[in-house]
């Protein structure tokens, strides 16, 4: 992945047109609704959020492998920061700073070449890093000679690192793959389509609550509809991974469809347990960063391992 590869990649250019087309279409529909006198101001705000996010994401991928890996790491750090501020872990600057550094270390292992094999991306170290990081995190109370409340702090830090750091960073590691553009662009696009589908189906046909104690607005109809859409999407975007067989496409669709909504529910119960509505205010009309990337956190590592198993990253 680099700038000239992006310019010569049919996959990248096709997605550029598809995403541009979708944004233009959505803008036109919103414009018509506004002219027709419907109140869509909150949707406009969400749409403006997309108009900022889409160029940032596509621009980062366009810049290449390094930008993508460190861009994902930055997103993971900001996401973890929101989680730390929401739970109160943030008051412990040593643990918070330690997790920041650990996420940076994930990016570095994703970026540097494997010393034995010479390929970009040292997967062995990347996969082993959690052992070292957890080892250091549980050592912090010993170094500080403190016991009171330490299990909670350490647990929050470990979950924060593993979930928001390590699992999410698999997205960055995908930048090392031969078919990086196809994988990354498909994932980003399909995960968002899945979110939109769940919302739309829920609004149109929602009758039965999916998990009323966690997220009262989600319905079984929305869930099923989104999974159905997500299973179809890989067939439409088959050019992203031409080496996939049809049942690989179904599997991929199920991962995005089910995993995406599970990721959403995970953030929902974290928020509900803490008692807050949004994880932050980073993106106007969307809430915090975690409110936007929640689905991807769950999907990225599972998709990564399916790809690795089918085809290998290199």
């Amino acid at each position, binding site marked *: 992945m680099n700038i000239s590869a992006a310019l010569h990649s049919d996959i990248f250019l096709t997605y550029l047109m598809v995403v541009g087309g979708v944004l233009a279409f959505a803008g036109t529909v919103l414009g018509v609704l506004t002219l027709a006198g419907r109140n869509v101001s909150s949707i406009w705000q969400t749409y403006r959020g997309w108009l900022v996010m889409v160029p940032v994401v596509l621009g980062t991928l366009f810049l290449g492998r390094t930008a993508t890996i460190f861009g994902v790491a930055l997103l993971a750090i900001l996401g973890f920061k929101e989680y730390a*501020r*929401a*739970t*109160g872990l*943030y*008051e412990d*600057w040593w643990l*918070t*700073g330690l997790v920041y550094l650990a996420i940076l270390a994930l990016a570095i292992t994703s970026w540097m070449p494997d010393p034995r094999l010479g390929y970009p991306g040292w997967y062995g170290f990347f996969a082993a890093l959690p052992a070292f990081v957890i080892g250091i995190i549980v050592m912090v109370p010993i170094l500080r000679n403190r016991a009171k409340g330490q299990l*909670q702090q350490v647990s929050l830090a470990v979950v924060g690192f593993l979930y928001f750091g390590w699992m999410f960073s698999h997205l960055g590691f995908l930048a090392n793959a031969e078919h990086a553009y196809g994988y990354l662009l498909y994932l980003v696009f399909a995960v968002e389509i899945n979110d939109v589908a769940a919302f739309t189906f829920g609004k149109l046909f929602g009758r039965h609550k999916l998990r009323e104690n966690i997220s009262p607005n989600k319905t079984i109809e929305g869930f099923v509809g989104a999974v159905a859409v997500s299973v179809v999407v890989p067939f439409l975007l088959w050019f992203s991974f031409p080496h996939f067989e049809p049942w690989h496409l179904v599997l991929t669709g199920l991962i995005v469809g089910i995993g995406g909504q599970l990721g959403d529910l995970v953030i929902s119960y974290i928020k509900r*347990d*803490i*008692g*807050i*509505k*949004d994880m*932050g*205010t980073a993106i*106007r009309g969307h809430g915090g960063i975690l409110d936007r990337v929640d689905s991807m956190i769950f999907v990225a590592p599972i998709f990564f391992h399916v790809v690795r198993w089918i085809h290998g990253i290199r």
Partner: protein
Amino acid sequence: MIAWEYKPAPDIDQTLAEHLRNFPREPRLLEYALRFLAALLLRAWMRVYHRLRVEGLEHLPQQGSFVVVCNHTSHLDTLALLCAMPIKRIHRVFPAAAADYFFSSLPRSAVSAILINALPFERKLKGAESLTLCKTLLQNDGNILIIFPEGTRTTTGEMGRFRSGIGRLVVGSDLRVVPCHLEGGLKAWPKGRLLPRPRRLHLRIGESRQYQQLEPSQESVMAVCRDLEQRVAALGRSAS
């Protein structure tokens, strides 16, 4: 099993602009790191570029909260005073800065709040509210408030009258007030100039004052202002 108690950050639903404008600000890791780095760079720059000389450091109280008052000729006043304060207390030093100027846009707010650690002071409306903010700040132990009682930078070099705010803040309380005088600011960075010139700066710190024996009244407020005004002026005269 007892459920965990979470403690979400109090400013979790504030946008960045709101967080920067609000006071007191919730401490943030990155901001502290940036402020510390800025303080180091500022100290180096002041020593090298302006040959800053500080006299009377021993007059700064070692413990407790106190107020610093100084004449106001340029933005360098704040920067020189920041450099004179112990670097260990850099996050507890709050220069009162005009909200209508230093917090008028997001980039300005970011510099004022993160690098300078400024307290947004409303000098036009809500002046009383801002004074209450200062009082609360000083009730917490170990905070340092920097105030320019003239209220604005001088353009002539003549020191303006001290406004009554400083008097109302300290009269009848055991707060210590440290008068200071900075010389050379007007030549180095006059109002209206974009960047400072390499001119010498000389900061004199006077003995701290206390006004707890005075009953709060209009006269004593004015007396405090005049007293501080004379102290600062005297520090300035001792130069020439």
